């Protein structure tokens, strides 16, 4: 280096002298903003270098920062995924708990409602084997469970106990191929035998082809098998096919529809009535007509409403009132009222029937009540509710 400077001593001196004078100029000169040129030059000379350094530094720092963030994001993603899985599991668990609580509540309600003596049990295991339709419950002979006892839920029958151990019992489900129970249809009371098929649905066997079974009909236990008391739901008909000599009826067991966790083992069964099927054309409730618009006269019904019996009954009541006779109070042999008496205001009076007499409640239930005009609290329109007559036989009165 020294040799190089000595060799180019003149050039070195030239550069130094020039540089010194440049500095001298820079110290004196100011730019438009009254800043010394030496400062401007220094900043101008240093800034690009600083910018490059800052770019390199920022890039490096940004790269590492992004790398760290990506790394952190990956870790966070992994943690969130784990948390999501945990929450999913927790959600499933809570749903299951809620469902179990609902079932337990329904089970308790059913247990209190049914006249049969039952004991609640939890399904604790299922039988070995792929096609096994057997479960184990946590009630055994120690709890009074015996072989052959029916197992039900509020939704329907589940199966029957095929083995009772001290602390557990083995229950054959209705879907087991070896299961059989006597059943009867709700609508037409067609008897048959429920049999398991080894899968989700069961079949009802021994139903003659001439019997009438429709899809959707419900089957109940008939009590003929001496295992299940009469009147417990079995399931709904999924499909019906005519065959000889018996129909092929597939039933979806209602007791297994919502899973199997808690059941009731029937210690002492009590037969129940099979609920009647709702009539196909039951009376339909119709609401009152809308109130008349302002300025519009409320139209009174022009004639008596209700059945002929209602009108006749009302006519006789008016005749009795006109003659001072009270029906049901006269002694045998006393003079009956004159049923041929001409009522002066019979037409007018007959035109105002008792709305309560003609009013029809749901499912054919009738009850007497005041007309809307007579009861200012209700505010119901004066027009009576029409009744859709049912072609089915009249239900027994519950008055």
């Amino acid at each position, binding site marked *: 280096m020294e040799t190089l400077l000595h060799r180019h*001593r*003149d050039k070195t*001196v*030239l550069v130094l*002298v*020039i540089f010194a*004078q*440049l500095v*001298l*100029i*820079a110290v*004196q*000169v100011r*730019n438009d903003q009254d800043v010394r*040129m030496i400062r401007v030059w220094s900043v101008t000379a240093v800034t690009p270098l600083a910018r490059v350094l800052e770019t390199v530094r920022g890039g490096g720092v940004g790269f590492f920062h992004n790398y760290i963030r990506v790394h952190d994001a990956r870790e966070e993603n992994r943690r969130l995924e784990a948390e999501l899985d945990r929450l999913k599991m927790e959600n499933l668990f809570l749903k299951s708990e809620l469902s179990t609580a609902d079932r337990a509540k329904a089970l308790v309600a059913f247990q209190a409602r049914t006249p049969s003596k039952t004991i609640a049990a939890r399904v604790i295991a299922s039988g070995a084997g792929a096609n096994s339709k057997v479960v184990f419950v946590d009630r055994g002979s120690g709890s009074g469970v015996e072989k052959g006892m029916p197992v039900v839920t509020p939704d329907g029958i589940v199966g029957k106990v095929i083995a009772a151990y001290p602390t557990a019992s083995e229950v054959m489900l209705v879907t087991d191929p070896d299961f059989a129970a006597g059943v009867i249809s709700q609508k037409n009371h067609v008897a048959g035998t429920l049999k398991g098929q080894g899968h989700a649905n069961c079949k009802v066997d021994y139903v003659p082809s001439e019997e009438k079974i429709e899809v959707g009909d419900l089957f109940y236990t008939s009590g003929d098998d001496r295992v299940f008391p009469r009147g417990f739901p079995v399931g709904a008909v999924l499909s019906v096919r005519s065959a000889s000599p018996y129909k092929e009826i597939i039933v979806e067991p209602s007791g297994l529809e919502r899973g199997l966790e808690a059941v009731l083992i029937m210690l002492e069964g009590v037969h129940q009535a099979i609920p009647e099927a709702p009539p196909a054309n039951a009376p339909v409730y119709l609401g009152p007509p809308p109130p008349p618009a302002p300025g519009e006269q409320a139209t009174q019904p022009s004639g008596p409403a209700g059945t002929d019996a209602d009108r006749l009954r009302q006519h006789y009541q008016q005749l009795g009132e006109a003659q001072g006779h009270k029906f049901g109070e006269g002694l045998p042999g006393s003079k009956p009222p004159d049923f041929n008496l001409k009522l002066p205001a019979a037409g007018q009076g007959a035109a105002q029937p008792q709305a309560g007499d003609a009013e029809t409640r749901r499912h054919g239930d009738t009850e007497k009540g005041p007309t809307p005009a007579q009861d200012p609290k209700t505010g119901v329109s004066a027009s009576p509710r029409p009744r859709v007559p049912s072609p089915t036989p009249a239900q027994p009165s519950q008055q």
Partner: protein
Amino acid sequence: MTESGDRILVGNQREQVSRFRARVLLFVPLAAILFQVYVPRFFVFLGYLELPLLVTIYFALMRRSQIGGLFVGACIGLAQDSLSTKPLGMFGIVKTLVGYFAASVGLRIDVEHPAIRLMLTFFFYFFHQFLYWVLSRGLLGEQIAFEIQRTLVLGLLNAIVGVAVFHFLDKLREQA
């Protein structure tokens, strides 16, 4: 190449190095600067004479030392700057480069010949003016135009004057 040509282009450095007394090296530049700042007050046209530049060229050429030439140029230039309104260093840089290059030329050719002196003076005057214009624009941001024709004419005028001045200054050299 002829013998005179060899003398012009090569020469013997040791024999051709001119030596001046110290007071000559001090007085002549000072006189040139004073002339430039004082005489034009009375004779305006003499303001076009760049005597400090001519003195710089002469001493650099004759001393045939690049370092000596650039120091002579720097000193004369800074002195000239100190008397001008321009920042210190503008003439200093320009005359430093002129002194350096003039000394470099003086090392290689015989600068005793009047024609050579005329051409070198003309060239360095043009170089001096051009470099000063560049620095004025570059360092000071002055928006001034470079008048080539005027510069060439003044360069020729200064070259002619320079030959005469050089002849006068040759008298001040120490005798070997």
